[in-house]
């Protein structure tokens, strides 16, 4: 299940003149390349091309309208040879994406699985519709679903999963295949475990910190998204009111002789200014979507931490059980009663047991101890494995997050600069019109 790249494959960079920071950066970049190279994306192009509406009967036999998304795949080789064959394609609806993700969550609990876009549109500024059927919402969802598939396909572990591959390539029978893996039972027990309340004595500190971080990230990004939406709302108002200037300048130009042309032109610039805000804010939604993805990622992070707690808890329980069994054996052998047991009390009250009875009990206990030791060993290995593999993926996630968010902030800044430049242009033009009056 592990990706076939390893640290051994990183090319040694012979130039020793690089600073340690640059070296580290080079290693990081190379690892990104390797990641891409070994992922599914090396073999195939994946895209979510279109969306369509369908009608059908749902689980309670009622008519419903839902949207399906076209998944297109094409082998990479074909393109590079100059021939561009038509892509293979199939249609999937949102619930199938959900099923895929749940399957992956259950099957690879140590992976921070990329999130799906939100089911219903929330935290949007007022101009955008919160309606699931709205074409803009559907379009943004299409982009987000494509992004989801690309994330899975570029993950060193998940990209090799068979169910994922068939999700992309075979429309019929995929759902049945998923259920055949018996994942449902695992999913149910996972859900139970997620919601259970238990106390872990010795969790790995790193996971505790990570859980803390994911809570903080969730809080701050939610707040950021909310305030940004309000800022967008207000900015919209400012731009649109300027449109009124356009109208009044136009009316005013009608009663003026020399100033007429200047006023009319200035009025047009004001109209253009007011109209420009729609595109500007739509572009900004892309930034919001990028933030939202990481908001939803925090849930995946928490799930991994939770799984660690669970494994650790099971280990601690097994160890505790073993200790108690060993103690019972010791008591039985030495005849002292340190632990309270009903048998102990009754034997005190009603007399000692026979030697045969004791012997039998001892044997049972020894058996249990043996089994217990096996169990503890198993749980220990399980826990160690989990911590190891999970932490590798968490480091991968951290790097991905830093890269992605940095890029998102940069393009946000570029958007702002572009908006302000456009504003300056409009007012410069208007000023020229006024000067010429």
């Amino acid at each position: 299940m592990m990706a076939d790249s390893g640290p051994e494959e990183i090319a040694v960079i012979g130039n020793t003149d690089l600073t340690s920071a640059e070296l580290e950066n080079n290693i990081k970049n190379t690892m990104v390349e390797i990641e891409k190279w070994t992922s599914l994306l090396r073999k195939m192009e994946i895209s979510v091309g279109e969306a369509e509406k369908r009608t059908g009967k749902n689980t309670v036999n009622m008519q419903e309208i839902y949207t399906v998304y076209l998944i297109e795949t094409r082998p990479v080789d074909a393109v590079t040879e100059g021939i561009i064959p038509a892509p293979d394609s199939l249609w999937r609806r949102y619930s199938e994406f959900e099923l895929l993700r749940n399957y992956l969550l259950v099957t690879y609990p140590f992976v921070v699985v990329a999130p799906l876009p939100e089911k219903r549109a929330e935290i949007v500024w007022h101009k955008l519709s919160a309606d699931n059927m709205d074409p803009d919402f559907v379009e943004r969802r299409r982009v987000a679903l494509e992004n989801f598939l690309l994330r899975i396909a570029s993950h060193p572990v998940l990209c090799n999963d068979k169910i994922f591959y068939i999700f992309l390539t075979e429309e019929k029978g995929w759902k049945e295949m998923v259920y055949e893996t018996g994942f449902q039972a695992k999913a149910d027990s996972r859900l139970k475990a997620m919601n259970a309340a238990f106390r872990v004595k010795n969790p790995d500190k790193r996971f505790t910190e990570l859980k803390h971080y994911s809570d903080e990230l969730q809080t701050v990004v939610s707040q950021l998204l909310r305030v940004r939406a309000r800022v967008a709302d207000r900015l919209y108002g400012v731009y649109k009111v300027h449109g009124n200037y356009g109208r009044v300048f136009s009316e005013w130009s009608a009663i003026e002789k020399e100033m007429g042309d200047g006023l009319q032109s200035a009025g047009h610039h004001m109209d253009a200014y007011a109209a420009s805000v729609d595109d500007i804010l739509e572009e900004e939604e892309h930034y919001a979507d990028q933030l939202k993805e990481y908001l939803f990622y925090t849930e995946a992070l928490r799930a991994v931490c939770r799984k660690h707690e669970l494994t650790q808890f099971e280990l601690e329980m097994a160890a505790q059980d073993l200790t108690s069994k060993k103690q019972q054996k010791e008591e039985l052998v030495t005849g002292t009663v340190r632990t309270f047991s009903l048998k102990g009390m009754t034997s005190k009250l009603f007399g000692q047991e026979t030697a045969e009875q004791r012997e039998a009990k001892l044997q049972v206990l020894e058996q249990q101890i043996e089994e217990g030791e096996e169990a503890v060993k198993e749980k220990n290995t399980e826990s160690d494995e989990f911590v190891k593999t999970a932490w590798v993926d968490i480091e991968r996630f951290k790097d991905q997050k830093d890269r992605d968010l940095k890029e998102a902030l940069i393009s946000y800044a570029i958007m702002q600069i572009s908006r302000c430049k456009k504003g300056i242009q409009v007012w410069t033009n208007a000023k020229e019109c006024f000067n010429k009056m």
Partner: protein
Amino acid sequence: MTRFSSPSQKQSAQESARDLSLPNGTPVETSSPASSSSLLNRLQLDDDLDGETRDLFVTVEDPKKHVSTMETYITYKVATKTTRVEFDLPEYSVRRRYQDFDWLRTKLEDTQPTHLIPPLPEKFVMKGVVDRFSEEFVETRRKALDKFMKRVADHPVLSFNEHFNAFLSAKDLDKRRGLALLSKMGESVKYVTGGYKLRSRPVEFSAMGDYLDMFTQKLGTIDRIAQRIIKEQSEYQVELREYGPVYTTWALSEAELQEPLEGVASCVANCSNALDELTQDMSEDFLPVLREYVLYIDSMKIVLKKRDNIQAEYETKLEAAAFRKEERASAT
């Protein structure tokens, strides 16, 4: 130094004599007895003093608050320097309050009916909405009063007005004003409420009246739009001030991203400050000019109204004279 252009079209003296037309291009016939060209001439501000030496300098400065038992009010220092013989002294420094400026303006209107008197800043401010004693308000008012005084001082006719002289020089203005208060009431009533019916108004004055009505309306609309923009910008500002700090909070949980996030936070703060400046400039520089022009137009409309009234009086008297002639003719 910023100069404020005339409220109507800038026409050279020669042009106005031969080719008369309204701002929207309609040519105008000069047929009425009261020559419209001379009226239009007087509607211009004489900006021709460029390069000429002035002999009268007036400034309005140093506002101070006065608290008396009856009321609290602000006075302004009016400083004069002049070489004119009409004045006894070469320098004067007196304290005047808004009421006094208002009195002066009314006196000028009454005594120079064919001249357009520059406007004063708004007289009434809604208590509770605007703080009459705030630094901003007082400063805005002082600037407008200063402008007013300079315009009168630069005017070749108005600056020689005896009331203007008194305003600049008199130690105790109240005595000079005296009963002027009563007459001021009467005259303004006469000019505003006169309901004379006109036979026919000369075309150019009707056109001018229509233009002024529309122009006022447009200016009023622009004023309202600007105020709305200021309001929307303030609300945008409120959100911006909450937005930046969220990035700072986020930066606290991050390592690699700390610097970029803090960068964004400081940029948002900069934008916020710039927006503050913009809003302030709009309030201080743009809106007052609009309002001043609205006041100018009000003055112009009053002048037109006076003209109407005079025409009405004239027509009434003509009728009366014609009637008496008939009577006398039929009596003989």
